[in-house]
């Protein structure tokens, strides 16, 4: 089956020819997903830490809820954000539908539960270790929370990468709220979906290969920064 090798060939040619259109699509993909991941990490890390540090009624229920929301289908997220941002929706006046902002919102909604649930897991292990120490120092909740996040920094990087992976590969939500408009809201995954529906499978696969290459690049950079931080020595 020559499809695969053909796809690699096309991917290589595309990259090599410095296709401007391809680069702008790649750029938008990264912009949307990285923005969404940064917001999701800000929110999700805090949620994960708060669920770990604070004991309050409903805490366990919330933990289960966030675990369950890891299974939020992108299409459903897309629909919900669509309904809110639609001209006849509550935030319709903002005119955000079919803009990159809408895509960032949708991806943020999608990934935040994942980041929250996984970081709660990472931080709980640490909390076992530090809880009594923190309490003996009479740290406030906020102080505990920030300290825990810092102590868990190495594990949280992987959580962030999982969030990034889900964001950059996601198509259902951005398709609905972004509309896959050429030159405006087209990103790698929606382009892949479009090419697939055109039956140009090799091109679709080529785009997929490029997307994975980007993902590899991002992960490699993170890994390099991380190994500079001497994870193994501190942990």
């Amino acid at each position: 089956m020559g499809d695969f090798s053909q796809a690699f060939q096309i991917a290589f040619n595309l990259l090599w020819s410095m296709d401007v259109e391809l680069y702008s699509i790649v750029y938008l993909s990264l912009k949307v997903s990285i923005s969404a991941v940064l917001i999701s990490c800000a929110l999700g890390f805090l949620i994960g830490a708060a669920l770990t540090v604070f004991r309050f009624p409903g805490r366990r229920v919330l933990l289960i809820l966030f675990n369950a929301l890891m299974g939020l289908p992108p299409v459903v997220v897309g629909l919900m954000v669509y309904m809110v941002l639609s001209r006849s929706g509550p935030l319709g006046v903002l005119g955000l539908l079919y803009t990159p902002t809408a895509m960032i919102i949708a991806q943020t909604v999608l990934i935040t539960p994942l980041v929250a649930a996984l970081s709660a897991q990472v931080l709980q292990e640490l909390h076992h270790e530090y809880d009594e120490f923190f309490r003996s120092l009479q740290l406030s909740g906020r102080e505990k929370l920030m300290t825990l996040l810092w102590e868990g920094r190495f594990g949280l990087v992987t959580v962030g990468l999982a969030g990034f992976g889900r964001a950059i590969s996601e198509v259902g939500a951005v398709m609905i709220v972004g509309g896959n408009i050429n030159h405006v809201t087209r990103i790698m995954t929606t382009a892949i979906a479009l090419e697939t529906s055109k039956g140009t499978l090799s091109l679709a696969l080529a785009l997929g290969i490029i997307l994975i290459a980007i993902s590899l690049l991002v992960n490699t950079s993170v890994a390099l920064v991380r190994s500079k931080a001497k994870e193994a020595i501190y942990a």
Partner: protein
Amino acid sequence: MLEQTNRTSTSTALRRCKPLQFKDVVLEIDGVALIRQINCTLDSSGKTIVLGPNGAGKSLFLRLLAGLMEPTSGAITGGLEEQDGLRKLAQDTGAPCMSLVFQNPVMLRRTAFENIAFVLRHHQVPKHEISSKVDKALAIARLETRAHVPARRLSGGEQQRLALARTLMINPYALLLDEPSASLDPLSTAIVEDMIERADAMGTKIVLVTHDIKQAKRMADDILFIHEGRVLAHKSKRAFFKDPGSKQAQAYLDGRVPQE
């Protein structure tokens, strides 16, 4: 050698606290009574040494005292617990009500230096003073050369010294120590005992758990003997070593199994 901060006056004020009192304290975990019944009163100053076999409940006793665990029944009163004004003061000046040095040193995933700086930062020590105070603490713990080593890579004794120095920096009104010299070399043990004596001299309440009977003899004002979750003796040092008051305590001191 103990860090005498300019907060000494506040600290002295803080030390005007009530005796610490256990009233019918019971602690059950998963239905098992680990602290069966403890009644005792610890003076608001002086050095109380807690003795007792492994698993007697000494560490749990310290945790209860420090308010890290809630008793299943009974109450622990005294200290600054009931005096809201003072407790507030304690929080404002950053001196915690009590300070516990755990049996297993808890090390943050940072350098030795940062481990101490962390504690200072959370006790309202002004930013520009932190670095010099940390250096002093490191000197006390004789860890000057290990300042920038990740704390979790330090040797067992080094970690224990770091944990102790870290706690002393915050000038607590009561210092609870769980086997602080268990893995210290003789010199470090002497230095630690000296530090504790100085804290005591400043009026800090000391509660120290140890298995080192020599140490108990050297340091104790009064001795609390715990056995299977009960206080079997609480006497002055002299009285205790003259008559431990129970065959369990006698057996403990002799290093043998209590006879029926």
